[in-house]
């Protein structure tokens, strides 16, 4: 009996029965239309399906340019549309309701719509992606509004909607005013004090990083999840896992994305993969449409609303997520094959208060140029040593942009990501601790594409540093409350790690200039202004700080055996100058365009990893 397009395809030997059974099983479990499962779980390509429809005499209606009667659409639930892929268009001349559906043969859909609208239903064929686009752009308004403002409504003190609070502005201007007055009244002592404080802050921040790196490197041998445990894990035991893939104009990466996802060792039917495409991103949508092989993800179109940021897209994607656990990857990410299972097992082992586990990030194109090498060194020490170090010290961990795995219910309880924060991940990491939860580290690596172009790198880095500043400002609105919630250790860790990072990059060029003026060019004026002890400490702090940072970079090569990169660590002072440029750009944007999302262009690398997924390290 033919009840859907899949049945028809099977009857005509265009689809095998074994696949059909699997499609039916998934469709029943998740209440999806079979065609949705076939198109989104890697059973059928859109091109094949279009040819089939054409052969069956079904003309595909262009719903995006169709004049529809919104009164019918407004009666439909966006989730139902998303699951069954249809759009009520208008009443036909014979009184029946014309409905565009991805599966014009879907008898169950026709029956349910008939019951709902109490009229005859006439199904016409439409592209499923167009249906999704139209449904989300029209019916997703409320949800996107919720995605943007829910945190602000629920927990305004954690939202970055206001960059500087009145008291913060008062404090900042008060401090600036105080320093200016002091500069006029006690010029030299004030300059000495500023110099001293800056150099101590510089060295202090780096010493803390070294300490973290050493702490983190202690856990190098310890494997939280063993290969045996992974091998013993049965597919029936694992939960549905949502993967959010926020993309914007990433049409070139879609093919790669599919192969990377295919490498994941996780039962296909339990992967709930959502490709989050912005409303105005037809390039990516068309790239999905034109794929020559079956896609293993669902498309969710994020309706336009400012701010147009990744966290907003992710928050929107959560409304359609079915998983018990959730993670985020970027389009170009190559996650470790076992990552999802490792994260699941980690959650099983960790106490209940652990609501997130963060995987390590690294780069597959590390040897492309100097910038990618430096970036790889930085990511290696950051994810392999610093974050485990923070975990050991129970200090808030700023989450990485991707490969962070959440318990979905807890993520919703935390208020999801802040759309007004441009490093929403770091902010969420701090918020996790703020709300008395914890973050674990899972030893599993996702390989990304390192930024290989300096201006693109500065764009990306300026956003990160601006985000760190935003995060710092948000959580330091009430330092006393913060101490009360995360303790003194967490408070100092937060100040050194989040606040200290931005401050270090801002003061670095000033200290470098001072160092050059004093030691290299030996300008005598410096010696007349500063007493010997200040010069001694400033020189010591600056040189020691740089050496220690080079040393931390050098440590990074060992765990992953990137020995060939060790000499590049010596270039860290130059790399830090680039950070300083980005920091000043970030500071400027923080004041003038706090929510502006500097888009990082991906897919610039000429190197590609040959492996779809990389074994665990």
């Amino acid at each position, binding site marked *: 009996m033919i009840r859907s397009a899949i049945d028809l395809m099977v009857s005509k030997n265009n689809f095998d029965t074994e696949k059909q059974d699997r499609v039916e099983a998934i469709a029943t479990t998740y209440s999806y239309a079979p065609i949705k499962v076939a198109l989104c779980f890697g059973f059928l390509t859109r091109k094949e399906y279009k040819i089939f429809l054409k052969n069956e005499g079904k003309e595909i209606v262009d719903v995006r340019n169709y004049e529809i009667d919104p009164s019918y659409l407004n009666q439909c639930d966006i989730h139902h549309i998303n699951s069954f892929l249809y759009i009520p268009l208008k009443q036909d001349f014979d009184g029946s309701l014309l409905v565009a559906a991805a599966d014009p043969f879907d008898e169950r859909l026709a029956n349910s719509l008939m019951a709902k609208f109490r009229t005859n239903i006439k199904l016409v064929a439409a592209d499923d992606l167009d249906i999704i686009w139209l449904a989300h752009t029209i019916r997703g308004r409320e949800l996107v509004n919720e995605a943007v403002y829910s945190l602000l409504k629920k927990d305004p003190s954690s939202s970055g909607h206001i960059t500087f609070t009145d008291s913060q502005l008062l404090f900042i201007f008060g401090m600036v005013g105080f320093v200016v007055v002091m500069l006029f009244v006690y010029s030299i002592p004030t300059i000495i004090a500023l110099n001293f404080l800056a150099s101590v802050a510089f060295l202090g921040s780096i010493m803390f990083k070294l300490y973290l790196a050493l702490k983190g490197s202690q856990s190098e041998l310890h494997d939280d999840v063993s290969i045996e445990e992974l091998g013993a894990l049965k597919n029936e035991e694992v939960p549905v896992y949502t993967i959010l893939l926020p993309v914007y104009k990433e049409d070139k990466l879609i093919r790669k994305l599919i192969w990377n996802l295919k490498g994941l060792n996780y039962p296909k039917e339990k992967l709930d993969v959502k490709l989050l495409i912005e409303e105005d991103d037809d390039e990516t949508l068309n790239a999905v449409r034109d794929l020559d092989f079956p896609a293993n993800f669902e498309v969710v179109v994020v309706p336009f609303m400012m701010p147009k940021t990744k966290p907003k897209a992710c928050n929107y994607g959560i409304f359609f997520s079915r998983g018990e656990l959730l993670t985020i990857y970027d389009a170009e990410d190559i996650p470790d094959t076992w990552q999802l299972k490792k994260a699941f097992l980690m959650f099983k082992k960790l106490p209940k208060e652990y609501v997130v586990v963060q995987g390590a990030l690294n780069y597959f194109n590390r040897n492309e140029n100097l910038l990618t090498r430096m970036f790889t060194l930085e990511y290696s020490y950051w994810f392999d040593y610093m974050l485990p170090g923070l975990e050991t010290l129970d200090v808030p961990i700023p989450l990485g942009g991707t490969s962070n795995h959440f318990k979905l219910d807890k993520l919703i309880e935390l208020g999801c990501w802040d759309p007004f924060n441009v490093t929403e991940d770091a902010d969420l990491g701090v918020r996790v601790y703020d709300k008395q939860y914890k973050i674990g580290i899972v030893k599993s690596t996702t390989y990304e594409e390192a930024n290989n172009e300096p201006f693109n790198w500065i764009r990306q880095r300026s956003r990160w540093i601006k985000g760190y500043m935003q995060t710092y400002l948000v959580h330091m609105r009430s330092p006393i409350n913060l101490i009360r919630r995360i303790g003194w250790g967490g408070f100092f860790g937060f100040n050194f790690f989040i606040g200290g990072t931005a401050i270090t990059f801002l003061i670095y060029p000033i200290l470098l200039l001072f160092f050059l003026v004093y030691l290299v060019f030996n300008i005598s004026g410096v010696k007349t202004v500063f007493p010997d002890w200040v010069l001694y400490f400033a020189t010591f702090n600056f040189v020691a700080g740089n050496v220690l940072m080079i040393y931390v970079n*050098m440590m990074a090569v060992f765990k992953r055996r990137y020995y060939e990169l060790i000499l590049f660590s010596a270039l860290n002072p130059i790399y830090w100058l680039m950070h300083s440029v980005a920091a000043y750009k970030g500071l400027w944007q923080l004041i003038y365009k706090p929510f502006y999302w500097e888009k990082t262009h991906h897919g610039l690398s000429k190197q590609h990893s040959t492996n779809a997924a990389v074994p665990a390290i």
Partner: protein
Amino acid sequence: MVFLKKYVPVLLAIVLLSYYLIIAWVLHRTGYEHSEALFLAEKSRLLFEAKENTLLILGTTFPTLVYLSTVVFSLFGYPFAPILASVTFTTILFLLLVQDFSKTSLQKKFFIPMLCMLFLLHPGLVYTAVTGRSIALLLLFFYLLFRSLFIYYKTQTTFSLSMASIYLTCLIFCNYNFIWLLLALMPFVVLISLEGVKQSKHGSPIVQYYESINNRSQRRKLTNRTIAIYIILFILPLSSVYLFKLLNQVHAGNATYFLTSQYANWSITGTETLGSIFTGIDYYKTSSANFVGTNVVAQTQIVFQGYLLALTPLFILVFAMFKGRLYELLTLLSPFLFIGILLLDNQTYLTIEYYLIFLVLALIGIYYYTGRKYTGTNMYPIIIVVAFLNILAGVYYFRQTSDKEERSFFASVKNVAKKSGSRKVSEEHRMASYITNLMNAEKNGDNGRILMDDAAAYSIVAQMRQLSSNVILPINTYFITVAENPKVEAKYICIAKEKNRLKSFTVLNQYNLNRITNNGLVHPVIMFETENWAVYRLDEGRGG
């Protein structure tokens, strides 16, 4: 019982600490003070009591870590601070060893008493603890360095390697000679690099090397790994030394000020060249009837390392136990290589610390590897007996030592043991008391000032009750002017007498006093003198 077991190491450490303090006190009563301890005490005093150039003292006094630790303990009195520091660090070394031994499968009832025996009775370790020298901190970092290296063999973690490089840096800042250990560790690095190469895993290192070098990718990997380990291990010590030299250059006008200035480094005045010992010049002739000990003779022999081994029987035992384990053997050999380099570079007499590092290394060897290899209890009595031989070897060392202060220590201990050690006060202490009293009297009278040079007279400055503002030292910017023409500022002058072995390190000696007084403008009147020191009052002369 569980409570006791848990705290036994700490309780033992407290007992040991008390034992060392008692010995230090008893020795102090016999008048024994080590000049290095007094040097450190004097620099601590200057840091807190001098009014000028304190940055120069804090920033350039070497060994930096030893000095800083003395500064921390100076709360308990300047002369006592270095002793308290060395007692504390030796006890920490003991505690770490006990804790490490406790973690192994070795029978604690054998090894803990062995450690107690060594730390209580080995004269070298007792000397380390009670003299206030830099040896205690040096041994502690030496122990931590080699422990990290041995852990690295087992675990191959970045942490161990990073910690090794940090400890190596600390070691150099406890004794600059240990910078040569970098060279001595080179073979170790070359071999350890093989660990990361998956070539003939079960073959000998030579076969592994051969195969790695003849395979392009393996060769590249091996080279990269070797260079990386070199860099991570050596970057911190070398860059720290560079930074320290930079700071010396900028603030003292000489990059090697901390190594070459008698104001910054005790070893300039405290160590002796082999030549000076052999020619039997200076104090040996007067003090000990030309006895220079046989150690100095051994040091000039090509088989000096054999002599070192003979004085550390435990090390010989460990060496035998490591038969067939090339990596570990090379690590154990690296200090020999270090001593070899040192003998080539440095013609100074090697004192007890260069012998004690082998004892420390032997202890690391016992608990890290022999515990795994020789679990049979029949080995334990042998180890205990050999440890006892080690103590006897220590006694032999002190009987034969060519270092005056080590002989003086041994003599003091013997006197105490014979109960013939009546309370004595050193001549520097007597001189310090006199100057303190003199300055106190002057403060109430003419306010006359005294010119002193702590290049040689640091032992006196260290033992003064307080540093009066009437004491003019080289740290004062006008010292040179006053030294040339004392009558400008000074009423008194403290000089090193002709027989003082330090007389050539200071401008305030008999020769210069004669030169100053020759013009007849100044007439020196002796006020107080000891065997090596004299204080003169500078009266108006009749003119030249």
